[in-house]
C-alpha cells in the first residue's frame, strides 16, 4: 500500500510539471503583459510611459526573456518554497492568496479562505438536500422522491446561476430584505462577539451558497440513487435477505455501506471544486474569493497569481484523485493495486 502511494506520488511529478507548463505557455501566448495595460490606463499620465522606461521595466522583471526561461525562473522560485511576488499588488503571492497576515492568521477572510468557506457551505447544503432525495429515490423507484429528483432537481439544474443570483438579490435581498447580499460580513463585524460573527458570516454566505448548491443537487441525487440501486440488486443483499435479516439491517448494514464505494469517486470529484471560486457568483455577491481574484489576475496579466491559482488547482485535483484511489483500495480489497 505504502509503495503504491509512493509510486503514485512520483507519477504526479511529471503530471504537475506538464500542467504548469501548459498554463504558463497559455498565459504567455495571450498578448500583452503586466505592464502593457498600465502604459495607457494611467491615472495622472499626461503622457504615456516613455518607451525606454517601458523596455527597462520589462527587463527588470525578466519579461523580455523567452517564455521557457521565464518558466524556468518561476519553477526555481517555486522550488525555493515561494510563489513569487504579484506584479499588480506588489506583495508576495502567498499573502495575496492566503491573507495579509499569512502565515499568522486571518485566513478565513483571504481569497482562499473565503472561497473554501463558501464552497464548503454550498457543498454541505447540496449534500444535505441531494443525499436523502437520492436515497429515497432508490428505495422506491418511480415514487415521489424519485419524481422529485428527476423532475424538480433537473429543472433547477437547467437554471443559469447568474439569473438565479439576480433573482435572489432582488427578491430576498431588496424586496423582503431578509438577507444581506454583498461581501462576507457587515460593517459592524469588528464589534461583534464570536457567535454573532459566525451568524453574520453565515447570513452573508446564505444566498451565494444557495446559488452554488442548487445546480449540483440533481447530479448528486442521481449518483446516490444509482449507487444504492446497484447495491440493492446485488447478490450479497439477496443473500442477506435470504438469511432473514431485518430489512433495516440489510439496508444500512449491507446495501448502504457498499453504495458508499462509488461515492468515493464523487468525493474525488467534489474536493477540487472546493478551492476553485465561481467567477459569476463571487462577483455578483461581491464575495472576496478565488474566482474574482483569478479574473482580475487574468485581466491584469498578473502571471504569478494566475500560476499560483493553477498550481493550487492542480495540486488539489491530483491530491483528491490520489486520495480517492487510496480510499478505494482501503475500502475494497478487490481493487487494491500492487
Amino acid at each position, binding site marked *: 500500500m505504502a509503495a503504491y502511494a509512493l509510486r503514485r506520488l512520483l507519477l504526479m511529478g511529471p503530471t504537475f510539471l506538464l500542467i504548469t507548463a501548459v498554463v504558463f505557455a497559455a498565459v504567455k501566448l495571450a498578448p*500583452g503583459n503586466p505592464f502593457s495595460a498600465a502604459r495607457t490606463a494611467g*491615472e495622472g499620465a499626461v503622457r504615456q510611459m516613455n518607451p525606454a522606461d517601458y523596455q527597462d*521595466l520589462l527587463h527588470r522583471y525578466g519579461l523580455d526573456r523567452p517564455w521557457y526561461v521565464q518558466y524556468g525562473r518561476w519553477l526555481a522560485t517555486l522550488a525555493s518554497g515561494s510563489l513569487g511576488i504579484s506584479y499588480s499588488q506588489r506583495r508576495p503571492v502567498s499573502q495575496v492568496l492566503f*491573507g495579509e497576515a499569512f502565515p499568522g492568521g486571518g485566513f478565513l477572510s483571504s481569497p482562499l479562505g473565503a472561497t473554501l468557506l463558501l464552497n464548503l457551505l454550498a457543498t454541505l447544503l447540496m449534500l444535505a438536500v441531494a443525499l436523502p432525495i437520492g436515497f429515497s429515490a432508490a428505495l422506491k423507484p418511480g415514487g415521489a422522491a424519485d419524481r422529485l429528483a428527476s423532475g424538480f432537481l433537473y429543472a433547477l439544474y437547467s437554471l443559469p446561476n447568474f439569473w438565479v443570483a439576480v*433573482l435572489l438579490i*432582488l427578491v430576498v435581498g431588496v424586496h423582503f430584505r431578509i438577507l444581506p447580499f454583498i461581501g462576507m460580513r457587515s460593517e459592524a463585524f469588528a464589534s461583534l462577539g464570536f457567535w454573532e460573527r459566525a451568524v453574520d458570516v453565515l447570513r452573508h454566505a446564505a444566498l451565494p451558497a444557495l446559488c452554488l448548491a442548487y445546480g449540483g443537487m440533481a447530479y448528486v441525487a442521481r449518483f446516490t440513487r444509482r449507487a444504492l440501486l446497484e447495491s440493492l440488486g446485488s447478490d450479497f443483499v439477496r443473500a442477506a435477505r435470504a438469511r432473514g435479516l431485518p430489512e433495516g439491517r440489510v439496508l444500512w448494514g449491507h446495501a448502504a455501506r457498499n453504495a458508499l464505494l462509488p461515492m468515493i469517486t464523487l468525493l474525488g470529484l467534489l474536493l477540487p471544486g472546493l478551492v476553485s471560486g465561481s467567477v459569476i457568483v463571487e462577483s455578483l455577491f461581491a464575495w472576496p474569493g478565488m474566482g474574482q481574484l483569478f479574473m482580475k489576475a487574468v485581466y491584469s496579466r498578473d502571471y504569478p497569481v494566475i500560476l499560483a491559482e493553477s498550481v493550487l488547482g492542480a495540486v488539489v485535483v491530483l491530491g483528491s484523485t490520489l486520495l480517492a484511489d487510496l480510499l478505494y483500495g482501503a475500502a475494497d480489497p478487490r481493487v487494491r493495486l500492487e
Partner: protein
Amino acid sequence: MNRRRCLFGLCLFGLTLLASCGGSGEKAPPAPPPAAVSKAPGEAAFLPAYEKRAPVNGGTFTRPIPVEPVTLNPVVASDQVSFLVYKWIFDPLIDMDEKMEPTGVLARSWEVSPDGRNLTFHLREDVSWHDGKPFTAEDVLFTYRACMDPTVDAVNKRPTFAEVQSVQAPDPHTVVVTWKVPYAPGLAAWNLHILPRHLYDYPPGKGAAFNQNPLNARPVGTGPFRFVEWRRGEAVVLEANPAYFRGRPHLDRLVFRILPQAETQLAAYRTGTLDMTTLSSEQWEEVRKDRAFLEGSSVFEYPARQFFYIGWNLDGSVPFLGDRKVRKALALALNRKGVVDRILGGHGTLLSGPFYPGGWEYNPAVAPLPYDPAEAARLLDEAGWKDTDGDGLRDRGGKPCAFECLVPAEAEMFSRWLEVFQQDLRKVGVDMRVRKLEWGVFLDRTHRHRFEACLSGWSLGDDPDPFQLLHSSQGKLLPSGVGAGQNDGAYSNPEVDRLIEEQQRTFDREARRRALWRIHEIVAEDQPHAYLFASTQMAAVRNRFQNVKASRAGYGLFTWYPSLLEWWVPRELQ
C-alpha cells in the same frame, strides 16, 4: 488628471433583468415624478431648509468601487480605483477645482518665471503628516525623485515630467521646477500626491523596497482622511483627520466597498448599504418612476471627461482610409445622434474634435458633423468608390470598400453602437466587419498599429494638450514594434505638429486657446478619428448628504478639490 484609453461601462454580464423585475417602489401608487429630478453640474444638492444652516460634523459615507485598489501608494498606483481612495489620504501640490482651474492644496501659491522655464511653488507651512511630523519641501523632492527612479514602478508618472530639467528646494517651503523648454502643460503634472520621505525613503536605485513597502497597504499622508483599515476584497475604511490644515472634513468616515457588478450596486443602494450608486441609462429609466427612490436621493447628471471615437489607421495599410474625403464620408454616414438618443437614452453630447465640450480649449465654432448619408455617398462617389459590380458594396480597382473595426469585448455598450454603425455604413455601400477582442489584446493590437479601425474611449487630462493623440512623433513605431505614443492611427500633419509645439510653449491662456482652436479646426477637416460623442454620467447620492455638487468641468462628484470635503449630514439624520 488622466489621459488615457478607457473602457466605458466595463460590465461582464449584461443583465437586463432588473428592468423587468422592478424594485420595492413598485407598490407605491403611480405618481408623476417631479419635474426636475437631476441636479445639473455646479448645482449643490440640499434638503429643503438646510441650505442656510451651518454644516455640522459627523456621519459615514459608503460608496462602491468596482474593483479593489491595486495599491495605496500614489507613485506606484496607475489605476483609477486606487486613485479614488488614496486621493483622500494624500494631498497634491495643486489640484483642479470644480471649473478645471488649478487650485493650491499643499502649495499656497505658485508663479512661472517670465521666460516660462521656471515654476516656483510656495508651500504651506501649517501641514503635518498623519503621524505628526511636519511636511516640507524635502517630501516633494523625495516624491519627485521616486517618480524618476527607473527602479520604481512609477510607470505613468515619469512621462509627465519628461520636460523637467531639475527640481530644487531653496528653502524648506519653496520648490522650484525648471523645464528644459517653456512648457505650459507642465503645471498639471504637479497634481501629484506627495509621500512622506521619513516613512517611504529607500536607497536610490533599489526601488523594490519602495514598490513593495508594507505602508502601501496602510498609508500615511497629509490628507483630509486617515487610513483605518483595508479588508482585502471587501472594503477600505478612512476616518476624518482632525488636524487637517483646512479644518477637518465634516464627514467622520469614508467607506469604499468593493462591488464588481453594477446590478448589485443599485440593489445595495436601495437597501441602504450604500450611500451612492452610479446609474446607467437603463437603470435610470427604471428608478425615475420610483417615488421612494427619488424621495431619498439627490440625482446628478454630469458630463464625463471622456469621449468616444473610431480611430482610422492612416499608415497606408488600408488605402481608402488614407483619403480624407473617405474618412469624412464615413463619419457623415454614422448616425451618432441616433445612438445617443436611442442607446444612451439622450445622455450624451455630439462632438467635433478631441477636446472637452464646454472646456476653454473646445472650439465652439466647429460644428459636429451631421448625419448625412446622401453627402457621404456623394463624397465616396467623388473619391472614386462606386458599386461597379452591383453587389451593393462600393469598390475601386477590384477592391471592395470594406474594413474591420476592433472593439474591446468587455465594453458591451461599444458593440451595441457598432451594430448601428454597421447598418448605417451598409446603407452607403461600405462593409464594416466588427471584431471583438479582450481588452489586453485590443490594447496590444492598437499599440502595434495592427488594425484597420478601432472603437475606443479617451479620457481627457487636466491639461488639454493633444500631443500624445495627434502629434506625428507619437504615431511612429519603435524598433520593438510598439507605437511611440497614443497616435495609433499614425496621423501626421506638419501644421498640427507645429501648432501643438507652439501651444506647449504658450502660457498666455488666450494665445494658447487660439492655437488649440486652430488645431481643432484642422483636425475636424482631416478626420483622423471619427469623433462620436461625449457621454454624461448619472449618480444618486442619499439626500441626507448636504452640499453635494458635480463639477462643471466634467470631474464628477469627487475628482476635484474640495468636493467631498464640503459635504455634511444634519445631526438628526446621522
